[in-house]
């Protein structure tokens, strides 16, 4: 299941209804991404204040559904969930939740990490950070590309 929303979500509520009463599930893996109040770059004095996530309504949902379908094609999953927020967020705010349920823990972990890695390079979200040095659009990160690339091998022929 996919949800894109500006409102906050409650990971406990999501988890409580995730895969409920499905006794084929042996493991649930859940990831929550938060706005970090860290230095903007290593070695920098800049701090992140708020950030605004812009997205492409319609295409975002389409890409997330595609990523979810790809995960379910690759791993034996009993349930999947992606909740992604947009709009202005403050340090400590939740941004994204990804959850997977599988008979086996390894599949749950791999699929969950795959979902967040692909989402970060494929779902049309753009981030503008408000830092102590001013506001700026964040550039795509090489580390995100590398994380996504790892999963490329198993990709379906397109």
């Amino acid at each position, binding site marked *: 299941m996919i949800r894109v929303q500006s409102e906050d979500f409650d990971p406990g509520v999501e988890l409580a209804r995730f895969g409920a009463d499905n006794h084929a599930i042996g493991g649930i893996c859940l990831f929550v991404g938060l706005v*970090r109040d860290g230095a903007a770059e290593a070695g920098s004095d800049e701090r992140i204040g708020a950030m605004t996530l812009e997205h*492409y309504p319609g*295409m975002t949902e389409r890409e997330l559904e595609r990523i979810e379908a790809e995960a379910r094609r690759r791993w034996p999953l009993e349930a999947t969930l992606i909740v992604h927020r947009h709009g202005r967020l403050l340090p400590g705010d939740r941004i994204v939740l990804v959850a997977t349920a599988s008979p086996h823990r390894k599949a749950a972990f791999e699929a969950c990490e795959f979902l967040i890695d692909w989402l970060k390079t494929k779902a049309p979200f753009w981030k503008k950070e408000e830092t102590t040095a001013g506001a700026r659009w964040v550039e795509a990160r090489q580390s995100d590309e590398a994380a996504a690339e790892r999963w490329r091998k198993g990709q379906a022929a397109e």
Partner: protein
Amino acid sequence: MKIVYFAWLKEKAGRGEVQVSPPADVSDVAALIAWLKLQDAGHASAFADMSAVRVAVNQEYVKLDHPVAAGDEIAFFPPVTGGRC
């Protein structure tokens, strides 16, 4: 056709979306960009560095040689960036 912009491309283009009716020989994304750059300085600046521009036609990622036609929704945006986690 409908053109939509996101992130800094929206700021440079000076608007989030615009309806355009390019001439008939504007038949793919590359030609559309060339035509848009001639329309105003905002577009010229938005498309100055194409290495940082991604394109979707009807909400599907495409390359510059992808055809465009009346009725299409063509989106221009930078490479995507998720949260910092």
